[in-house]
């Protein structure tokens, strides 16, 4: 636990002064000169490590200390090896002499030294030399070396593979492929460690070799794998474990399909005599004729086959059951990898995978094993002409509905979707219909998966799903609350302290509201955009507005809505966009009442209403009825200020003949009258003092909109001018009930005066307030007749003789 003591320790380590530090160094050098390993030495080395690692800048050690530390790398005492390696890792890179020293004195590269060399590697060449050194040790190792001396080789090589696969030459790859085959397939099947058969009277005769066992206790009948146990293990059995642990990565790195020449040859071969090759490799004796890479592939295949069989056994220990699951995942991944490389193996592999799917699909505890199986189906299902419907039903239909609260499954499933998005869009386009299910992951644990949805959401926005998706996104906090209630109601119905969640839980269990919640929990789209009694649902879930999970969910919605709208304008036609405007207007008052949520949503709506109308101005005329209905309600000025402002603005801007020829004079007049009525009402002196004032921006927007409309239908100009002059008169009298701030009032009045003077010259007003398109979309920089730089250039070339 972190305490003040720990904090002060770090502080001391950071702030140690130079003289004290030097004294410490010299004391340490003296200690290291001594022959015995004392507790003080170890303690001092540990403190040294803390001092060095606590600061962000690198400290310098005296060279004598460095030399001593280097010599400790080959100490027989592991503690000293570990500590010296850790200290030297915090230091600047090793000099050439130091590297030489290591090469000569450390002899066979031990694990700690290898770690040091890796971490201090400055170039790929450094990595190559570590690699070469290790492989040399692999090749010509004396047989009496201790059992653990080789074991770090494969992990170190795996590290090098990760960062710089080119460090291994073709020869290295061939050598390692051969050794891997030996370890994986031909490891000893006798228990190691001098295990006896366990009888009471032990003697030389009873030291019979005991065969390895399976996880359920039965004697093993086939080659050794990671799922075999024994009292002790031989070295090659350890290497079997290490080899399998890195096998997938090895195959991914060196056996990928894009791997140049070697794969072209194998492809040709498999095309010519594909079936012959696979039948040949089915028998192990003739597989010796295969080149090392292909042989490794074949052995990997057999290993995975065996693992799948072994995973069916009932393990005696729980940790082994977990290991079996992990092995299944790995085996399926390796088989997938191998089949991608050699398509002829698909026909041998599919029966296993299919059988495995059949065995596991009913058991949700194997969900994470089923994901790699789904990947296999996706990659090879078409080739094998296998029907994958049941797989998608499980992955998209069942998993999200029942396992939404498993963070690891959520991560892996969404990752699976993300990586294979193109394949899904081409081959399984119906996956978009499962968006209500997929959004359950988001509703449950927004912070963890919102990043994935930023990537996935655009693909879920299609013309068919757009409207329902919008409704679902807006109600995601409700889904969040519903999922919580669903989980709670499956627990025992014990009343919680404080009775929290009681009301909504009762509602959840109430049959008359069942339909509402069931709609929320639906798995597939298509059964309706939303429900009629949405506001009832919001009332029932009112107390959920402060549940942390619901609040976290609500915080991610605005971002996702932006992504939604940005995508939808690219895929939707005008009709759909018109529908969406209606949805926005309608839903602006039907949202779960979470503080700031409603405001944020209105802000998003406003922004995108504007964008949509800018892109398709005729939408305004199209939807004028609904927009006017919205704008005609004075209450909206106060409760939905942001959205109201923007609705008024788009009406003023785009309700004109130049935007849509259907715009008639009567339409302009009726719009004018609606807005005028609202403006009168909110600026009337009849409002009692102390009521909320309308935002100044609403008033100025209304005035501007009225002026714009009047500029298009000149009969209306007198009415506006009258209002504006009245406004000036009223405000000269001092403060007004509908505006509390003096500066705001001045701004409003100024705007009023500007509009009033503009409207005195109707044709000017028209060109200012309703400019024609070629003015609003200037291409002056492109038009050579008008663009200044181009004019200047033309003049220059004319006047300056070349």
């Amino acid at each position, binding site marked *: *636990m*972190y*305490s*003040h*003591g*720990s904090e002060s*320790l770090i502080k001391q380590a950071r702030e140690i002064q130079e003289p004290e530090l030097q004294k410490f160094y010299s004391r340490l050098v003296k200690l290291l000169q001594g022959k015995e390993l004392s507790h003080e030495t*170890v*303690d001092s080395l*540990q403190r040294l*490590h803390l001092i060095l*690692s606590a600061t962000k*800048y*690198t400290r310098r050690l005296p060279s004598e200390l460095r030399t001593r530390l280097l010599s400790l790398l080959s100490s027989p005492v592991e*503690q000293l090896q*570990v500590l010296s*390696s*850790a200290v030297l890792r*915090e230091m*600047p*890179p090793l000099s050439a002499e130091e590297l030489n020293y290591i090469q000569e004195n450390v002899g066979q590269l031990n*694990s700690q030294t*290898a*770690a040091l060399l*890796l971490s201090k*590697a400055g*170039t790929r060449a450094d*990595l190559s030399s570590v690699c070469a050194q290790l492989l040399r040790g692999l090749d010509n190792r004396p047989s009496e070396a201790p059992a653990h001396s080789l*074991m770090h080789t494969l*992990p*170190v090589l*795996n*590290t090098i593979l990760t*960062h*710089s696969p080119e460090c291994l030459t073709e020869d290295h790859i061939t050598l390692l492929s051969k050794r891997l085959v030996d370890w994986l397939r031909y490891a000893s099947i006798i228990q190691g460690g001098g295990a006896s058969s366990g009888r009471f009277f032990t003697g030389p005769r009873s030291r019979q070799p005991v065969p390895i066992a399976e996880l359920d206790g039965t004697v093993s009948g086939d080659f050794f794998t*990671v799922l*075999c*146990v*024994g009292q*002790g*293990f031989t070295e090659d059995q350890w290497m079997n*474990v*290490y080899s399998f*642990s890195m096998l*997938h*990565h090895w195959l991914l790195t060196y056996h990928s399909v894009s791997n140049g020449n070697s794969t072209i040859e194998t492809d040709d071969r498999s095309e010519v005599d594909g079936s012959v090759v696979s039948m040949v490799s089915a028998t192990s004796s003739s597989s010796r004729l295969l080149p090392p890479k292909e042989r490794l592939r074949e052995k990997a295949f057999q290993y995975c086959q065996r693992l799948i069989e072994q995973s069916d056994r009932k393990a005696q220990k729980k940790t*082994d059951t977990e*290991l079996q*699951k*992990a092995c299944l*995942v790995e085996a399926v991944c390796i088989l997938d990898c191998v089949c991608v490389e050699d398509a002829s193996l698909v026909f041998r592999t599919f029966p296993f995978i299919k059988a495995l799917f059949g065995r596991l699909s009913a058991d949700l505890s194997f969900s994470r*094993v089923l994901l790699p199986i789904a990947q296999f189906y996706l990659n090879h299902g078409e080739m094998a002409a296998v029907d994958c419907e049941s797989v998608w039903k499980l992955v998209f239909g069942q998993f999200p509905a029942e396992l939404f609260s498993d*963070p*690891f499954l959520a991560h892996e499933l969404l990752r699976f979707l993300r990586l294979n998005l193109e394949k899904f869009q081409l081959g399984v386009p119906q996956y978009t219909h499962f968006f209500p299910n997929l959004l359950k992951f988001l509703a449950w*644990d927004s*912070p*963890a998966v919102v990043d994935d949805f930023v990537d996935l959401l655009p693909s879920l926005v299609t013309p068919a799903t757009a409207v329902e998706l919008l409704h679902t996104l807006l109600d995601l906090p409700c889904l969040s609350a519903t999922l919580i209630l669903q989980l709670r109601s499956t627990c025992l119905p014990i009343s919680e302290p404080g009775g929290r969640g009681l009301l909504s839980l009762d509602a959840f269990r109430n049959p008359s509201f069942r339909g509402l919640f069931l709609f929320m929990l639906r798995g597939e789209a298509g059964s309706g955009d939303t429900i009629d009694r949405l506001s009832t649902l919001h009332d029932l879930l009112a107390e959920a507005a402060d*549940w942390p*999970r619901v609040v*976290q969910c609500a915080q991610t919605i605005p971002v996702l809505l932006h992504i939604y709208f940005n995508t939808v304008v690219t895929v939707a036609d005008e009709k759909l966009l018109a529908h969406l405007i209606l949805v926005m207007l309608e839903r602006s008052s039907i949202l779960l009442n979470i503080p700031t949520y409603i405001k944020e949503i209105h802000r998003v709506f406003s922004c995108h209403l504007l964008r949509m109308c800018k892109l398709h101005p005729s939408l305004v005329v199209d939807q004028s009825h609904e927009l006017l209905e919205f704008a005609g309600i004075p209450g909206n000025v106060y409760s939905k200020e942001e959205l109201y402002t923007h609705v008024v603005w788009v009406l003023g801007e785009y309700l004109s003949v130049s935007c849509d020829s259907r715009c008639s004079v009567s339409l302009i007049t009726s719009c004018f009258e609606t807005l005028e009525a609202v403006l009168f009402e909110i600026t009337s002196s009849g409002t009692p003092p102390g009521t909320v004032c309308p935002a100044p921006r609403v008033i100025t927007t209304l005035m501007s909109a009225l002026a714009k409309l009047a500029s298009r239908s000149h009969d209306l100009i007198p009415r506006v001018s009258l209002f504006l002059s009245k406004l000036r008169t009223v405000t000269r009298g001092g403060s007004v009930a509908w505006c509390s701030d003096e500066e705001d009032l001045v701004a409003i009045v100024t705007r009023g005066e500007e509009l009033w003077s503009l409207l005195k010259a109707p044709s000017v007003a028209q060109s200012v307030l309703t400019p024609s398109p070629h003015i609003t979309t200037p291409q002056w920089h492109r038009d050579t007749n008008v663009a200044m730089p181009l004019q200047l250039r033309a003049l220059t070339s004319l006047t300056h003789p070349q």
Partner: protein
Amino acid sequence: MVRCFLIHTVCPISALSAGECRVLYSRVFGPDEAVLSEELQELNPEERRLLQKEKVAVVARQVHSAVTLSREASGRQLVEMVPGEEVLALQDANSGVVRLRAGDPFNEEMSVLWLGVHSLGFAMVCEPHENLLLAEGTLRNLSRHCLEHLHMLGPGSEVLLKSSRIDVLLSRLLPHGQLLFLNHRFAQSLEKEVAAYMAK
């Protein structure tokens, strides 16, 4: 392979200001990413070291906020734990995964598995193609060993002064960042070695 394993503080601690997170142990496996990437060739070794420390700090902060948000969402109260209740503490622990996008802070996309045990966070940065089921099991195992051998549930600054023990634990159960498929027998054998080392 696992790129990085770290232990850091989580949740409000009296010794630190709110939101601040102290990295108690970190181990980055393998060569420095910056060495092998073209854009970062001009950095000198000191800058590279600093960059690596910053990357680890970024991971710690991400996990810290993930743990905080997860605990907030689940609404469970933290119960005081005492040494001896390690297994219980692990059972109660929150766990999850954070996705780190490519470039933020590692060159490629990474998945960070985390475990929040009381006021400690254990995090393992894995490459996405890694077997996350195995990684999860390994993380739990490592955390259990760390908690038990370093008495992390009690007061005291053991973990700062005993980093070599964690190094040895990692060298057996996660050598050079390699996740291992260990059945209970193999695991037992390695854990015996670790216990022998810890006892010294």
